[in-house]
């Protein structure tokens, strides 16, 4: 997966002749597609909220309930993405490096969070983690409440984000030769040194891409979260839910205002991750 802000190595000059013709057609399609499907709706959003003006946006963002929801959304999304980074790496490693009975089946399970309607995931997670659920009941004995708290949001977002990390890292792991580990060991490196110095650096760019994707997906996640979060204002209410709430109250300006703020923060966060990604590619990705 390449970073969107990097120009591909194989990018052609516009005029260079090519074995496969059709630059004009594909480029035109790309522009129309991006324009109609991605940019136009986003532009509409900004158009709708432009009536508010910067001061209006600021007013919305500083509403305590909105500010709390934005904080919950972005912090928990990031936390979930970081958790996914670790577990996703381990899952991808096991699925790629080891051959065992049922590997393909397990590999297929990884994609389920992609395919499942998110509401289904939310309902089952809520049932499992509610104080009377299979996981919730034993945890309640230790005074740990997951369903209907921020922890519940974290659990749902970890579930949703995992495949992004696994699927971005997997191909890179399969390219890493086992001989690299063996070479490191013959040179006297311990296991931890081999992992930190030899195995992780080439994986860093892919890991960052996975992190960015999981993070982005979590920010927009709605269906699975609302069932398990309890949606208590100021505590476990996420920004996407607040948008729906505002729309239901016919507060279109307020809804688009929150959406615009989310868009800005998301864009800034993804841009930052992409910059780190580009840097790490330069540093480690020399393959």
């Amino acid at each position, binding site marked *: 997966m390449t970073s969107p802000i990097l120009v591909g190595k194989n990018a052609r000059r516009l005029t260079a002749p090519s074995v496969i013709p059709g630059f004009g057609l594909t480029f035109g399609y790309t522009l129309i597609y991006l324009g109609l499907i991605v940019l136009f709706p986003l532009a509409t959003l900004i158009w709708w909220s432009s009536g508010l003006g910067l001061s209006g946006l600021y007013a919305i963002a500083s509403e305590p309930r909105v500010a709390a929801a934005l904080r919950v959304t972005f912090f928990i999304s990031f936390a979930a993405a970081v958790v996914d980074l670790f577990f996703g790496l381990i899952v991808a490693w096991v699925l790629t490096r080891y051959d065992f009975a049922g590997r393909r089946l397990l590999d297929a399970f990884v994609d389920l969070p992609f395919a499942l309607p998110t509401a289904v995931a939310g309902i089952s997670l809520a049932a499992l983690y509610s104080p009377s659920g299979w996981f919730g009941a034993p945890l309640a004995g230790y005074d740990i409440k997951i369903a209907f708290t921020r922890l519940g949001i974290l659990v749902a977002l970890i579930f949703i984000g995992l495949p992004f990390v696994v699927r971005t890292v997997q191909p890179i792991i399969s390219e890493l*030769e086992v*001989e690299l580990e*063996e070479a*490191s060991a*013959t*040179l006297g490196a*311990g296991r931890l040194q081999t992992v930190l110095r030899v195995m992780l*650096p080439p994986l860093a760019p892919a890991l960052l891409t996975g992190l960015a994707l999981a993070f982005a997906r979590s920010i927009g996640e709605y269906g699975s979260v609302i069932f398990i979060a309890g949606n208590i204002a100021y505590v476990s209410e996420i920004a996407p839910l607040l948008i729906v709430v505002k729309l239901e109250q016919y507060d279109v300006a307020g809804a688009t205002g929150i959406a615009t703020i989310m868009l800005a923060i998301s864009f800034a966060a993804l841009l930052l991750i992409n910059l780190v990604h580009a840097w790490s590619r330069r540093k480690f990705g*020399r*393959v």
Partner: protein
Amino acid sequence: MRFPEAFADTKTIKRGASIRIEGVEQDFGAFPALRDVSLDIQSGELVALLGPSGSGKTTLLRVIAGLNSPDRGRVLFDGENATGLPVQDRHVGMVFQNYALFKHMTVADNIAYGLKVRPRRTRPSRSAIRTRVAELLQFVQLDGLGARYPAQLSGGQRQRVALARALAIEPRVLLLDEPFGALDARVRKDLRRWLRDIHKQTGLTTVFVTHDQDEAMELADRVVVLNEGRIEQIGTPEELYDRPASPFVISFVGEAVALPVAIADGQVRFGGRELHIDTHGLRSGPARVFFRPADIAVAAEGNGDLEGRVESLRRTPAGVRATIAIDGYDQTLEIDSPLERSASLGGRVPLSLAKARIFPADENGGYVNAGDGI
């Protein structure tokens, strides 16, 4: 080119350990990769492990390195049991077939790796590491390329980086897996000579794996021929050429022609003819005679062991090369000879054997035990 003397500073690690392998066996599932392999390698020796793919040569190298632990048997370095010793503590310099360079590190960082990962107690200072890297770069004739990345080097250069990286840790033995496998023919030739020089300079016990018999014969002091997980023969190149111990060795090491024969009453019979081969000590029964194409020549009329038909004649700088179909043998032979002009296409010629080996068949129909030559 001189091996940097700075490397002799670690007195505890002897350069060029002797290696002893005792009854090593390894199975991969139902497939026996090594079967009762025993081998002694002297300190400072240059040994080739030669065999076709699947013969167990790489597995044996990995057992020596400690990357595979054998199911049975022992590996000793300088007489000390190293069988249970982890790879990290074996101090072997290993050069992998695809070099296994760390692509995200510069050439200099690759070479320094084995020194940098040492525990603080034994790790050389930064400046000492830098000096060693510079010395090693010079030693492998890559001065000035330390800041490059492996992707920016040619195949031959990468191989030298891999070698420098292995030498940096002052290994007790140097192990190379198909060191020239991935290189084109010209680079191969240069590197062969170069490896020989390196071996002379460092005095390291060196074991390399190859499937190329020319390479093994040209480079090694001794060659270990492996087949189906067993050692067929251990010997100097001369011994392997002149006294091959098994039909496998004679066919694998150089070209050989095999004729199915029968031993009866102390005579070797091929078709209706008698071959003049000493059968002393061999029992009667089916056998096989092996000879090198160079050991067969056109004989004077009436003196031949064999007879053949001239299929084609071709002029070469040295004389004439004839393609001859031997009676009772299903393949043709190319024989260089000062063939008389009278020998004509399609004509019959007598052929005599200068040297041959005979291997009688065993109960299973295989051919064992070297027989006498002519």
